[in-house]
């Protein structure tokens, strides 16, 4: 026992001495979430990454990888309590929220001095979109900024069953079809006849609204939106719009006809899990280059993506998962240098996104990345949210994707309909009481209405009454005023 105590004390002493020995090299801590929490190989990747930053920048790098389930709370606490976090991602926390609460540091000067590579990498329009009150507080990554709305993802085996000739209708990308909603309705009716015991559609509660109505949820909430975001900056009530009513009517019909599970309101399985289990035949999602592969990976079924709505870059799209520096950081320069490296250095970017070559991934003969020998999704030691990383364009293409997926993504972004309000953020702290009440009304009604569990016209009227009673008018006015002021500064009419 005594020996053990002595041994522990010695160990502590040695440890404290080693930390003193390295104390002259500043440490930058970088925090980001994954779906699964801290990967087993974090220490290994951290050591490799840190070796690169030590050699190139003279900075040690530490990673703080958190489970997305507790990410929001943990980060809020860590940022509020002044823990050592230097670089963090605003995913889930809200970019404008981080700025308003004083979590994020102004970056303009740092960018000019230490972030030249970043400025050369990111589309300047996107950096402009990150300005709040004249300052940049966060940086978007190289990813699909735009979003294709209203994509019905239908498993091909059921399409074959009803004799639908999807192969001849495929677009140039070989995985999707542009079509009108009427065609979807037609296909659904046939699918229901062919497989009455399966649900035609497995809805996704969280994204249902965004994929059935075309609008821009400016300020990141649904209380006052732009219904014609490419042409007009007039804030209006989404829930009184014709489009919303029509979408709800359609889903009400589908629900009445038994296309949707009666448990859809409380189902916590993902639509893809339900499809995989053979319960349902299709789902509604957003699309982008690579959607098919994602869906196939999750549901295990070959699918076709039916695109019914346009591609749209909404006002908050650019800033939704910005990289920011902690306003309390004591190593701001070093942190910016590290970010700059991650945006521009292929070796570091690849290490961060995919791990070590030969251990976590390998390069196939035709130049794609795939799992290293003996590794698969179930036993991999390192994985991240690749789209979240500063520059995935530098990191190679995972097997199964088209070789030019990153070029496709850029084109997808460029060709999209862009919101006039791109970059607008709304500080709702002055109307927070209304926001809280509105959110509660919204949560009470939205899923029942949008999934067609209640007769739409009367339920929508009831919801609107409650929204107005909760202060929707005042909230929308505040938003419109903020938007007008923002537009005046940016010179947009």
């Amino acid at each position, binding site marked *: 026992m005594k020996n053990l105590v002595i041994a522990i004390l010695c160990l502590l002493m040695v440890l404290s001495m080693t930390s003193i020995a390295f104390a002259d090299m500043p440490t930058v801590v970088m925090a980001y979430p994954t779906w699964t929490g801290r990967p087993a190989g974090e220490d290994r990747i951290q050591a490799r990454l840190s070796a690169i930053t030590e050699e190139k920048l003279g900075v040690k790098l530490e990673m703080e990888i958190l489970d997305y389930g507790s990410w*929001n709370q943990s980060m*809020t606490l860590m*940022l*509020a309590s*002044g823990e050592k976090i230097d670089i963090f991602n605003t995913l889930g*926390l*809200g970019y404008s*929220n981080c700025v308003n*609460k*004083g*979590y994020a540091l102004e970056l303009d000067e740092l960018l000019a001095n230490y972030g030249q590579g970043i400025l050369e990498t990111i589309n300047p329009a996107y950096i402009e979109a990150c300005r709040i009150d004249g300052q940049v507080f966060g940086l978007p990554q190289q990813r699909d900024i735009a979003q294709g709305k209203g994509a019905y993802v239908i498993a091909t085996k059921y399409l074959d069953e009803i004799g639908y000739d999807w192969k001849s209708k495929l677009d140039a990308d070989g995985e999707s079809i542009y079509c009108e909603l009427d065609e979807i309705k037609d296909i659904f009716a046939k699918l229901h006849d062919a497989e009455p015991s399966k649900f035609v559609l497995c809805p996704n509660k969280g994204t249902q609204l965004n994929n059935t109505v075309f609008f821009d949820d400016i300020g*990141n*909430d649904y209380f006052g939106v732009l219904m014609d975001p490419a042409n007009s900056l007039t804030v209006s009530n989404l829930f009184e719009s014709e489009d919303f009513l029509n979408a709800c009517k359609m889903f009400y019909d589908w629900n009445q006809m038994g296309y949707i*599970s*009666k*448990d859809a*309101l*409380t189902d*916590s399985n993902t639509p893809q899990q339900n499809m995989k289990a053979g319960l349902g035949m299709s789902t509604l999602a957003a699309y982008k280059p690579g959607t098919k592969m994602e869906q196939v990976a999750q549901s295990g079924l070959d699918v076709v993506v039916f695109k019914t709505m346009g591609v749209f870059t909404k006002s908050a799209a650019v800033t939704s998962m910005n990289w920011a520096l902690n*306003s*309390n950081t004591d190593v701001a320069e070093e942190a910016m240098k590290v970010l700059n490296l991650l945006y521009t250095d292929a070796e570091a970017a690849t290490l961060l996104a995919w791990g070590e070559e030969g251990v976590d991934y390998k390069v196939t003969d035709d130049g794609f990345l795939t799992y290293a020998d003996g590794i698969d999704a179930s036993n991999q030691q390192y994985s991240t949210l690749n789209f979240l990383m500063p520059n995935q364009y530098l990191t190679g293409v995972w097997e199964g994707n088209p070789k030019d997926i990153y070029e496709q993504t850029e084109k997808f972004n460029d060709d999209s309909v862009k919101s006039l309000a791109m970059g607008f953020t709304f500080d*709702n*702290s002055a109307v*927070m*009481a*209304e*926001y*809280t*009440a509105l*959110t*509660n*009304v919204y*949560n*009470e*009604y*939205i*899923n*029942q209405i949008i999934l067609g*569990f209640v007769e739409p016209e009367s339920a929508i009227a009831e919801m609107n009454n409650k929204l107005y*009673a*909760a*202060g929707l008018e005042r909230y929308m006015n505040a938003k419109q005023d903020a938007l007008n002021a923002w537009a005046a500064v940016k010179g947009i009419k």
Partner: protein
Amino acid sequence: MKKKNKTLRMMIRNIPIYVMALPGLIYLFINNYMPLPGLVLAFKNYNARKGIWGSPWAGLSNFTYLFATSDAYVITRNTILYNLAFIVINTVLSIAVAIILSELKNKIKNFYQSVILLPHLISAVIISYIVFAFLSTESGFINNTMRRLFNAEPIAWYAEKKYWPFILVFVSAWKSVGYQCIIYLATLLGFDRSYYEAADLDGATVWQQIRLITLPLLRPTIIMLTMMAVGRIFYSDFGLFYQVPQNSGALFPVTNTIDTYVYRGLLEAGNISMSAAAGFYQSIVGFILVLGANLLVRKFDRDSALF
């Protein structure tokens, strides 16, 4: 002088007991007293850069959202009425179960005691799925049984708010009776058996014994536990009201309490000051209620009052 010496001697003699209490006291201090200065956040516009003390004062504006709309009435009503129902029903059931258990043989008593304690140890998320297994519209136990037996139309449990006051009360009792009854049982077993022997000799029935001996002896415990529950009457069991109804919007009118309202409203906004305001409001009202309840108890039964 002599008296002082006696106190000191008592204290010295009790040092081991103080030492035993120390970890608990330290925990209490760290967990319950050290964060108290943080209550000031409820009156500030918190900004991380300026820190707790440097952030600007906000007056009472952080509290307004709690009272701003008609929801304020619904959430307050739900919170208080449910808690009152829980206090009454769970206390009555716990005492009944404790009395029954006390009459059982030791071995079988331990078995039952463990079994009814089990729900208390299950996390609310798992309970929500147990409830879901019963109530699911497509595949739930109740709907399927009713269909097979009576050919009944399935009920969309998670969309019909009229059932939920009963479901919640039932689940709450199922979850907490096992724990509460242990406290009553421990008290019960400490009673002097000679009261009961004397009553037996006088020919008192079991019911008379319960009514005239057990319940009066239990009174201080009942009052203490009830008062502790009253102090938390403005709080709600978050798991019960959020997880068990599966956060179903249709049920909000009967499941929304102060805690779930604050959680839903602030989940995305992440406003620390407003959450602190809600907590402040709940604690102050709870504090006043405990003081008031104690005052009442002291008026009617001095010995049972907490302080």
